């Protein structure tokens, strides 16, 4: 059971990453796209607009909460850190 939970946590972290609200926002935007299209309004603008808004919001939030990093220090992809999903190269 623990292994299953670890595996699920790994895949979640691998795909979704540090900000789960981005994924939630994308799901909501996809539902909104389908709904807008279904009621007869062209929906091609919904997802690009939502993506831009979500990205701006997420990055601004991170920029105001993260400590300022040194400019050229190695980050999270060092071998010893690779057992965490955030150690992937994104």
């Amino acid at each position, binding site marked *: 059971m623990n292994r299953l939970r670890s595996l699920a946590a790994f895949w979640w972290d*691998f*795909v*979704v*990453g*540090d*900000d789960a609200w*981005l*994924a939630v926002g*994308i*799901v909501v935007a*996809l*539902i909104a*796209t*389908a709904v807008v*299209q*279904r009621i007869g309004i*062209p*929906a*091609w603008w*919904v*997802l*690009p607009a939502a*993506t*831009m808004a*979500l*990205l*701006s919001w*997420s*990055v*601004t939030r*991170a*920029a*105001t909460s*993260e400590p*300022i*990093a*040194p*400019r*050229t*220090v*190695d*980050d999270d*992809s*060092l*071998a*010893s850190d*690779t*057992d965490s*999903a955030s*150690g*992937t*190269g*994104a």
Partner: protein
Amino acid sequence: MSLGLLVLLGAVFLACAVEAVEALTVVLAIGLTRDWRSTWQGVGTGLAALAAVVSVLGPALTRIPISSLRLVVGGLLLVFGLQWLRKAMLRAGGVLATHDEPAIFDRAVAQAANAPPVRRTAVHDWYGFTVVFKAVLLEGLEVAFIVLTFGTGQHATGWAAIAAVTAIAVVAAGGAVVRGPLSKVPENAMKFVVGLLLTTFGVFWAGEGAGARYPGGDAFIPVILAFIAIAAVVGVAVIRRRSGARIGASA
């Protein structure tokens, strides 16, 4: 070959080259510091584990009904791509540290030099084996994810695989010549571009999967790319100004 497919193959090539550079740094650090035999065992076992994962995920993706395929694949790609782009923007804005292969290489070498050699079963150096195995598997998973999602989304998995293998071969050849981390590769800029491309294709496919009809069809992809690129560049400028103000305030 259409322009869209060429852009897609370029994206796969860039993404896979970045991941291969990261894996290469670890492989070289362990191989040059410790034991090449255990290093190759780690590479081989990592690739075998990767093949097992792909053999499960690949057929699973192809079983998704065609009507839902672009929604599922595009949605996954969009969430995954936004993660890349978000990190790339935070790095470019000075909030997260930029990726520095020589520094990572030096740190890996220092750690490898201090770890005691432990033999387990057929593996002469367990530390080197496990470090290389994890690096190859994790970086390889990102490659596999990108190849499978791009390939199935555009019905060009074969072409995507060729682009990935070419990228890995080019990076491996570079590593064999240099015998050190590929510090000249503009990794941070490449990650920014890859994040933009993953997000763009994710928006296009997921939007189509959800029922949206983009003006001009595939011809709208460059418009989405330009839109997101402008937003990302403006976002980086805003973050830089804010992080500069924070540094100034704390000084």
